[in-house]
């Protein structure tokens, strides 16, 4: 399946940087999902969960205990059906050139 580059960053570190099949997040207008080659987009994020579906990389070690690889990680290999979830406290999502950038003030693994 086609993938898109995903960067999830907060001031205290990068939480995720790698390819993924889909990113789902909540903007002020409602939930939105980005697949590969989504059109250029900028949105304001509401506080909520950002889901990175089918990630190919491990989450970054930005924070303390919350960042240990959870059971989701241990699932079936291949990246299929796996997902990473991050709680964000508002932020911005920007998509262009098959790259999804989520910048948020603070984020953590639930």
């Amino acid at each position: 399946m086609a993938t898109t580059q995903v960067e999830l960053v907060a001031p205290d570190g990068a939480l995720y940087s790698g390819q993924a099949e889909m990113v789902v997040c909540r903007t002020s207008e409602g939930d939105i999902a980005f697949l590969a080659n989504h059109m250029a987009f900028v949105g304001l994020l509401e506080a909520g969960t950002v889901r990175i579906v089918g990630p190919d990389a491990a989450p970054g070690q930005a924070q303390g205990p919350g960042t240990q690889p959870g059971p989701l990680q241990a699932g079936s290999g291949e990246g299929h059906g796996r997902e990473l979830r991050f709680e964000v406290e508002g932020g911005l999502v920007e998509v262009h050139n098959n790259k999804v950038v989520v910048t948020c003030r603070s984020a953590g693994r639930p």
Partner: protein
Amino acid sequence: MAAEQERLLRHRIRSIRSTQKITRAMQLIAASRIARAQRALSMAEPYVARLEEVVQELSNTPEASAHPLFTGSGQASAVVVIGADRGLCGAFNSSVLRMAEEVLGDDHVRSPLVVGVGRKVQSYFRFQGAPLAHAFTGFADRPSFEDAVRVAAPVVDAVSDGRVGRALVVSTRFLSTGNQRAEISTLVPVPAAGEAGHEASFEFEPGPETIMEELLPRWIEAQLYAALLESAASFHVAQQRAMQAATDNAEDLVKTFTRAMNRARQDAITTEIMEIVGGAEALRQAGRSEDLLGQPEVYVFPEAS
């Protein structure tokens, strides 16, 4: 005389040694803080870089490029001066302050809104009789993102309500552990990136105004956060270097004074011996003058016979 001098020198050496202990401790502390500051800097780097990318990308869109973030409407400027809370760090503060004076003396910078970070910056401007509009102290050597948000607030307000069209930062850039420099950087306006005619079309959700309203503070916060972290890392390097020099200098002084002290002690001993010998000689002379016609001055060494 010489004994007195020796006592003074001994006292002085002891005091230098205790100062040296302090400077060495400060040097080691600063060295350990460099590593921590660099770590914080590298953690913040992706956030700042990604946000920069977003801002660059949006500067090409017709909807966003009219925003004050890119146009810089307004005559006045905001200047954020970032220094340290403490001294004992060589020319760290003075080079930032000198550059700040240069910026504020510039004709293009009219009725500036000056924001200062660091106790040294605050006291400098107070001493100059031009107190800062906003002063922030207490976190210059270990800034958190929340601190950056607080520093950014007055600048964000001034830019978004059009009071200032330009926002500058005077701070020390951390180019590498061996190279830091006071520099002026421009936060607002952001120069439009990329080739003319290359207009990106973005879907904005919600509208572009709301997005830009949100992006402006995020941009200024992130840039200030990076500047604060770089300044803190540079401060620790400057302090480490200054304290290293002080420790070395103390070592040299101890060496010099120890030599002087030894000479003084040797002088004292020599003087004492001279006095004894002189005294004995005087006594002998006195004895000889009593019986001038006594025995001839022949000494027989028992071993030689």
